[in-house]
């Protein structure tokens, strides 16, 4: 037999598989919504529509808008902290 090595990250070290899911909110009424756009054209426009729908249908409250300065870059630590601190849920989208 020949041992063939796995070229993938395979859920082991270095992969994102260990990242736990955030707890799901049980209700949206009065919750502050974070909108994280990728910074390309129309991303925030799409997210704003979603926020309006969430407000109509589920009674969400305030909104915090964050647009990345570059769609290829990760969200900055400051913005991630802001969203975590102020928002009950965050919706993200790729606009283009």
């Amino acid at each position: 037999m020949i041992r063939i090595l796995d070229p993938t990250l395979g859920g082991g070290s270095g992969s994102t598989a260990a990242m736990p899911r955030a707890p799901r909110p049980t209700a949206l009424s009065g919750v502050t919504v974070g909108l994280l756009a990728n910074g390309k054209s129309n991303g925030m426009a799409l997210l704003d529509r979603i926020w309006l729908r969430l407000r109509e249908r589920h009674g969400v409250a305030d909104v915090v808008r964050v647009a990345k300065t570059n769609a290829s870059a990760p969200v900055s630590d400051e913005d991630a902290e802001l969203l975590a601190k102020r928002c009950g849920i965050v919706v993200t989208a790729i606009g283009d």
Partner: protein
Amino acid sequence: MTTRPGFDAVDPWSAIEQCYERGWTDGLPVVPPTEALVDAMLGAGPWKADHVLLHEPVRGRAVTAEKAAINAVMAGCRPEYFPVVGAALEAIGDPEFMLHGPATSTGGSALMVIVNGPIAARLGLNAKTNLFGPGVRANATIGRVLRLVLLNCLDCRPGVLDKSTQGWAGKYSLCFAEDETASPWEPLHVWRGLPTGSSAVTVYAAESGHNVLSHGTSDPERLLTGFADVMASLGSLSPGRSVIVFAPEHAAHLKRAGWGRRRTAEWLYTHAWRSLADLKRGGKVEAAFYDNPSLVDWLYRDRPHGTSIPLTAAMDAERVEPTDESVRVHRGLGPDDILLAVGGGEAGGHSAFFPSWSRGRSVPFVTKEVSS
């Protein structure tokens, strides 16, 4: 003894087929990465197995030297290629390169690797005839490793995280050496700030190349007119970067005329432009551009000194104003956005222009020294 992750195969042929079944290939057969081959690959570089060569920050993926070595074996590399492979992975993992975009975007770019310095000849990298095409192991396999790492380690699979609208053949592999002997200039990596005698890779996210053919002139300005025209084509025009690889015949014309890198890049930047009116007529100006100060600055960058950008209220993405005819919109933001290299066969007036990925600024050129 701990068993390393993987599988057991009865023979190489079944190993190749199982690699296909597991989705571990780019569509071409891979060399089965046995422990002995992987250890030989790893041993040819200066890195320990768990050293992180590439960290992708958007999704927090870390590619170790061991994983890189496995993919290098699969790509068909010889162990002595591994220092170049590692440098190329470090280069695309540079935070400035922002790999997430070119790895996943609809633009479908290839990862271009230009190799300079003595290591290129030692590895037999092709800088001459058919340098972008098939036939040479080092070119074909070093570039292929980057794609296999994207597929296998970053999950950039077509339709999953690789959303290339069309992609192109350079995504299999796009690695070549600069022909330093045919170049009128200092080697590319020396121009980029590394010491003479060192070896280096320069990476770039490239859309498919345009052949720039010119056989009828040796005059630098007439010659470069064709290059500037291709660079300014509406299909490619953007505030992004450019790579030009001059064929030796074209490079010789520039050499005879005494044109240096700087003068050549400045001439190309100055002449690679279209009027704002042309951009609007060709649907290249989007309404959303006017919400983006850097794109507005690009469109009006060439305005006469001291004049202000028109008021937002007067802007319209589709309406051509009489003044738009005289607004010149250049490719890129300046001569530094144009990278010049030399390569190709001795015969033929065929050079190449590679537009950057993305309709925006794209990602910068990154040069890394190859560890010996």
